C-alpha cells in the first residue's frame, strides 16, 4: 500500500518536474541557437567584407601595374632616340637608341626583354635583363620575328594602342624555362614623324612581380588569394603544382571548375563583376578583371588590345570558417552545460514545493470531506450546542428525525428538540452537566424522548460529550432514534408468544432435553403432558425421561444415533406414561449445542399406538390379498391350459366324427338309404357346429385373457376394411355402405377389429332379406354427451323385449333356420367394449333395422 502510494507520488513528481523542465531546456536551446546563428552570420559578414577588400586591393594592384606597363610601352614608342634613328638610320642614333633602351631596362627591372622591331619584324634593338643585369644584344644576334603573331597584330594597331599577349610562361627553345618565368608581352606600333608605321616595341613583362604583389595582399587576408585566367587555370593558385595547368600536358585537369564545380565557375564568369559565393566547399569572393577595361586608377583611356581576362578569387575553406566559430560554439556548449543543471535544479525545487502544496491542499480537502462525510453518513443524529444551549450544528440525520432544516435549527435553543413537558427543567440539567462535563455514553440514563417539528414524540437514546474549543465549550449530542428497535422488541415478543402458542397447540409432543443420565425435560408443550398422562407440565418436567423407557437399551440407541448423525427421524420406541401405561411413540429429534457447548436435543414425540394398529391391519389385508391374487393367478393358468386343450383336443374327435362320416357318405353311399345319408349329414353338421362353438368360445376366452395394447386406432379405416372383406365374400350382394370419416379412437387395434367384424357381419347377415338396393349399413359417431359410435342397419332388427339377452353368451334372438350364428359374437363384443371402459347397447324393432351404440374410454374422456 505504502509502496504504491510512494510510486504514485514519484510518478506525479517526475511528471510535473519534466513538464516544467522540458520547456525551459527548449527555451535555453533556442536562445543558444539564436546566438550561434547571429555569431555565424556576423563572422561570415566580416569575412566577406575583408575578402572583398582584398579583392579590390588586388584589382587596384593589377590596374596600377598595367597602367605602368602601358605608359612604358608608349614611352618607348615615342622615345626621341628611336624617332631620330627612324629619321636618320645612322649608327650614332642607333647607339643612342641602344643606350636609352639599356638604361630604361636597367632602371625599370620590370622586363626581361625590351625590343624594337622594324616593320618587317626584324629586331633592331634588343635589351635582355639577366640576373638583374641588362645587356644590349649585338647586331649579329638579332633575329627576325616577322612570323610571330604579335608582330602582325601589333602592326595592325593604331597609334597609342597596346597589344597584350596572354599571361603564360616563357618558353626558351621549345621548352618551358626553369625556373618558370611568368611573362606578359606588351607591344605597340611605332610611327615616325611623318606618321609612317615603322615598327613595334615589344616588352616582356616579368609576371612574377605582379604575382608577388598579389601574394603580399594574400598574406594579409585570412583566405588564399588566387588569380585565374578565363579558362579557369590558376596563374596564382593554392599550390605551385596546380598553377599554369594549361602550359603542362599533365596538368590539363587542374582547373578551378574542375576542383570546385561548374556552377560556381559559371557564376564567376557570367555573374556580377564582383561578388562572393558560399557553399560547403567554403567562401569564395571574386572579381573579374580585364587589363584592357579595368581602369580603376586612371581616368585616361588606355587602350589594350587582347582578350586577356582574369578572375581574382579569395578562398576561405570551411575548416577556417568553422575554426572561427568553434570557439564560440564551445562557449555556447559551456553555457548550456552550466545553465541546464541550474534549470533542472530550479524545476526540481519548484515542483517539490508545488507538490507539497497540492498534497497539503488535498489532505485538507479530504480531511474536511471525511469529517463532513462522517458526520453526514453517521446513522445517528448529531447536534452540537454551545454553552448557552444554542445549536451550532446539526447533521442530516438529525434534520430528518426532528423534521427541521439546518437553518431552522442553527442558533435555536436545544430545548426546541425536547417535548414541552421537559423543557422547563432542561436548562437546569444543562447547567449541572456543564458544571461537571464528562462524556456520557448511550443508554446510560432514563428513557428519553425527542420532539419532532410536528409535535410528535419518539423514543431516543442520547450520548453527550464535551468539546473544548476556542469558541468555548461545545457539547456534542449523539441522538439515536430507537423507535424501530422498540418496535422490533415488541414484534419479537409477539412472535415469541405466537410460536409458544403454536407449539403448545400442536397435537404432537414437542420437547427439549439433555442426553444426560436422567434426561429431564427442559421444555415440553401441553401435548407432551397429555401423552405422558401427566397432571401438569411441571410434573412432567420433574420426571426423568430415562424412566419412561420400557427398555433402557432403547434410550442408549436413540442417544447414540442422534449424537452420531446429528438427527433422527421417526424412531419408534416403546415408552410408558407417568401412570405406567405402555405405548409406542415415534421420536424425531435434532442435536443442538447451547452457548456453553453443551449438547441438548430438540424433538417431537408422537403416540403411534393407533397408527401401528392400523398398519398391522393393512399388512394383514395385504397378505390376504396376495394369497387371493396367487390363487387367481393359478386359476388363470389353469384356464389357459384348459383353453389350449379345448382348442386342440376337443376338436380332434369332432374332426374324426366329421371325417369318417364323410368317408362313409363317399365310400358307402350305395349301402345307405336316404334316411341313413340324412342322419350322417346331420352328424357332420352337428360336428361342424360344435367346432364353431368351440372356436367362438375360445375367442371369447382369449378376449378375456388378452392384455390391451393401447394406441390410436382409425375406426373409419377398420370398418371400411371389414365391409370390403364382406363384400368380397359375397360379391353378388349390393349393400350400400356409409362410413363417417375421421373416427380415431384410442384402444386395442386387434380387439376393436373383432368388434367391427362382429357388428358389421351381423348387419351384413341381417340385411340379406332385403332386396340389394334397399340394404344399407352405416357406421358413424355422435357427440351428444359422450362420444358414441354406432353401427346401423335396416335389416331384420329384433324385439326390444329381448334386448337384455342380446349380449349374453349363447343367446340368440333368431332361429338358426333364419340366421346362422353361435350367439357368442355379441358377448365377445360386449366384453371387448367393457375392457375398453365403455358401454354397448342396441336399439331396434322387428323389421325396422337395428342400431348398435358403443362408447370407449368413458372414464378418460370424463376426466378430460
Amino acid at each position: 500500500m505504502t509502496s504504491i502510494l510512494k510510486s504514485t507520488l514519484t510518478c506525479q513528481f517526475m511528471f510535473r518536474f519534466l513538464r516544467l523542465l522540458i520547456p525551459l531546456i527548449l527555451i535555453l536551446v533556442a536562445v543558444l541557437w539564436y546566438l550561434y546563428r547571429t555569431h555565424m552570420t556576423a563572422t561570415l559578414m566580416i569575412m566577406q567584407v575583408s575578402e572583398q577588400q582584398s579583392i579590390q586591393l588586388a584589382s587596384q594592384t593589377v590596374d596600377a601595374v598595367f597602367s605602368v606597363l602601358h605608359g612604358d610601352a608608349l614611352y618607348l614608342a615615342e622615345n626621341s632616340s628611336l624617332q631620330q634613328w627612324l629619321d636618320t638610320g645612322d649608327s650614332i642614333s642607333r647607339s643612342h637608341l641602344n643606350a636609352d633602351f639599356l638604361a630604361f631596362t636597367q632602371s625599370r627591372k620590370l622586363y626581361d626583354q625590351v625590343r624594337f622591331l622594324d616593320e618587317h619584324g626584324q629586331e633592331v634593338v634588343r635589351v635582355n635583363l639577366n640576373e638583374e643585369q641588362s645587356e644590349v644584344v649585338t647586331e649579329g644576334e638579332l633575329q627576325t620575328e616577322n612570323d610571330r603573331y604579335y608582330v602582325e597584330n601589333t602592326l595592325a594597331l593604331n597609334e597609342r594602342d597596346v597589344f597584350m599577349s596572354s599571361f603564360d610562361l616563357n618558353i626558351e627553345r621549345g621548352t618551358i624555362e626553369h625556373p618558370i618565368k611568368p611573362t606578359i608581352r606588351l607591344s605597340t606600333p611605332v610611327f615616325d614623324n611623318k606618321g609612317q608605321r615603322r615598327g613595334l616595341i615589344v616588352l616582356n613583362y616579368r609576371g612574377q612581380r605582379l604575382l608577388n604583389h598579389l601574394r603580399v595582399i594574400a598574406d594579409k587576408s585570412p583566405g588564399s588569394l588566387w588569380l585565374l585566367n578565363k579558362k579557369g587555370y590558376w596563374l596564382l593558385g593554392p599550390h605551385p603544382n596546380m598553377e599554369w595547368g594549361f602550359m603542362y600536358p599533365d596538368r590539363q585537369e587542374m582547373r578551378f571548375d574542375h576542383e570546385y564545380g561548374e556552377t560556381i565557375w559559371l557564376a564567376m564568369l557570367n555573374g556580377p563583376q564582383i561578388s562572393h559565393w558560399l557553399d560547403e566547399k567554403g567562401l569564395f569572393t571574386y572579381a573579374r578583371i580585364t587589363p584592357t577595361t579595368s581602369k580603376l586608377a586612371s581616368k585616361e583611356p588606355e587602350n589594350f588590345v587582347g582578350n586577356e581576362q582574369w578572375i581574382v578569387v579569395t578562398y576561405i575553406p570551411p575548416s577556417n570558417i568553422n575554426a572561427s566559430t568553434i570557439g564560440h560554439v564551445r562557449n555556447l556548449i559551456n553555457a548550456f552545460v552550466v545553465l541546464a543543471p541550474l534549470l533542472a535544479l530550479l524545476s526540481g525545487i519548484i515542483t517539490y514545493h508545488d507538490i507539497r502544496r497540492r498534497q497539503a491542499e488535498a489532505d485538507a480537502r479530504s480531511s474536511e470531506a471525511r469529517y463532513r462525510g462522517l458526520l453526514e453518513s453517521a446513522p445517528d443524529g448529531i447536534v452540537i450546542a454551545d454553552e448557552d444551549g444554542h445549536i451550532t450544528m446539526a447533521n442530516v440525520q438529525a434534520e430528518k428525525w426532528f423534521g427541521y432544516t439546518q437553518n431552522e435549527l442553527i442558533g435555536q435553543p436545544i430545548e426546541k428538540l425536547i417535548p414541552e413537558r421537559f423543557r422547563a427543567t432542561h436548562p437546569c440539567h444543562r447547567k449541572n452537566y456543564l458544571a461537571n462535563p464528562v462524556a456520557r455514553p448511550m443508554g446510560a440514563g432514563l428513557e428519553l424522548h425527542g420532539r419532532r417539528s410536528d409535535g410528535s414524540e419518539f423514543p431516543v437514546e442520547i450520548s453527550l460529550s464535551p468539546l473544548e474549543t476556542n469558541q468555548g465549550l461545545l457539547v456534542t449530542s449523539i441522538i439515536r432514534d430507537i423507535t424501530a428497535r422498540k418496535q422490533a422488541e415488541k414484534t419479537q415478543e409477539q412472535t415469541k408468544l405466537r410460536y409458544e402458542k403454536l407449539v403448545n397447540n400442536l397435537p404432537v409432543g414437542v420437547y427439549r432435553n439433555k442426553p444426560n443420565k436422567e434426561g429431564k425435560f427442559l421444555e415440553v408443550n401441553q401435548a407432551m403432558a397429555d401423552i405422558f398422562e401427566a397432571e401438569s407440565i411441571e410434573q412432567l418436567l420433574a420426571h426423568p425421561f430415562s424412566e419412561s423407557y420400557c427398555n433402557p437399551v432403547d434410550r442408549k440407541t436413540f442417544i447414540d444415533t442422534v449424537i452420531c448423525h446429528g438427527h433422527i427421524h421417526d424412531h419408534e420406541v416403546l415408552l410408558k406414561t407417568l401412570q405406567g401405561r405402555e405405548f409406542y411413540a415415534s421420536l424425531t429429534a435434532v442435536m443442538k449445542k447451547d452457548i456453553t457447548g453443551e449438547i441438548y436435543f430438540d424433538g417431537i414425540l408422537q403416540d403411534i399406538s393407533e397408527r401401528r394398529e392400523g398398519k398391522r391391519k393393512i399388512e394383514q389385508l395385504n397378505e390376504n390379498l396376495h394369497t387371493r391374487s396367487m390363487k387367481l393367478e393359478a386359476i388363470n393358468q389353469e384356464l389357459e391350459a384348459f383353453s389350449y386343450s379345448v382348442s386342440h383336443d376337443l376338436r380332434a374327435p369332432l374332426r374324426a366324427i366329421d371325417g369318417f362320416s364323410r368317408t362313409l357318405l363317399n365310400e358307402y353311399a350305395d349301402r345307405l338309404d336316404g334316411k341313413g345319408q340324412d342322419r350322417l349329414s346331420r352328424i357332420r353338421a352337428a360336428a361342424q357346429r360344435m367346432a364353431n362353438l368351440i372356436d367362438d368360445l375360445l375367442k371369447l376366452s382369449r378376449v378375456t385373457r388378452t392384455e390391451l395394447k393401447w394406441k390410436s386406432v382409425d375406426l373409419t379405416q377398420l370398418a371400411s376394411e371389414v365391409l370390403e372383406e364382406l363384400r368380397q365374400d359375397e360379391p353378388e350382394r349390393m349393400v350400400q355402405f356409409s362410413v363417417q370419416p375421421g373416427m380415431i379412437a384410442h384402444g386395442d387395434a386387434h380387439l376393436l377389429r373383432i368388434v367391427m367384424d362382429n357388428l358389421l357381419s351381423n348387419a351384413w347377415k341381417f340385411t340379406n332379406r332385403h332386396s340389394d338396393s334397399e340394404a344399407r349399413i352405416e357406421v358413424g359417431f355422435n357427440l351428444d354427451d359422450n362420444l358414441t359410435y354406432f353401427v346401423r342397419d335396416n335389416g331384420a332388427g329384433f324385439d326390444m323385449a329381448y334386448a337384455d339377452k342380446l349380449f349374453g353368451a349363447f343367446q340368440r334372438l333368431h332361429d338358426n333356420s333364419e340366421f346362422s350364428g353361435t350367439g357368442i359374437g355379441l358377448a365377445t363384443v360386449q366384453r371387448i367394449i367393457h375392457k375398453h371402459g365403455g358401454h354397448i347397447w342396441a336399439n331396434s324393432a322387428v323389421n325396422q333395422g337395428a342400431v348398435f351404440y358403443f362408447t370407449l374410454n368413458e372414464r378418460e374422456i370424463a376426466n378430460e
Partner: protein
Amino acid sequence: MSEKAILLVEDNPDDELLTLEALEANRIGNNVIVARNGVEALDFLFGEGAYAGRDVMDWPAVVLLDLKLPKIDGLEVLRRIRADERIRQLPVVILTSSNEEEDRLKGYTLGANSYVRKPVDFDQFVRAAGQLGLYWLLLNETPRG
C-alpha cells in the same frame, strides 16, 4: 409325382387316418411315413434309434408336423430340425388343431414353411391337403432337389 416319402408326425390315430385319406383323395401317392411322437420323428430324420443307419441326407419331400405330441412336442422337433446343418432346409408344414395365435407365431418364428389348421369339415381338410401336396410335392423344388 415325386418318389420321395412324406413324414407325417401325428399321435392321434383318427387324425392319422383322416390325413392319409385326405392325401389319397388328392391322389398323392407318395410313401407316407408316420411318426407317432417327436422322438420317433427325430429318430427318422437323423437316422437314429429304430431308424439307425438311415441316410440323413435322404430327405422326405415334406414334414407334416402336429404340435401337440407326446415326449417331444412339435415346436421342439421343428427347432431341432432348424438347428441341424444337414436338414436345416427341410420343408416343414405345421398341421395342427390349434388355432392359438401364440402357436402360430412360435411356429413361424422357429422357421415353419407353412401353418395349416386342420379344419373339422373333412371337405375343407381334403382341399387343404390337396393344396399342400400341390405346393410341396409338385411346385416347390427343395434346395436339395
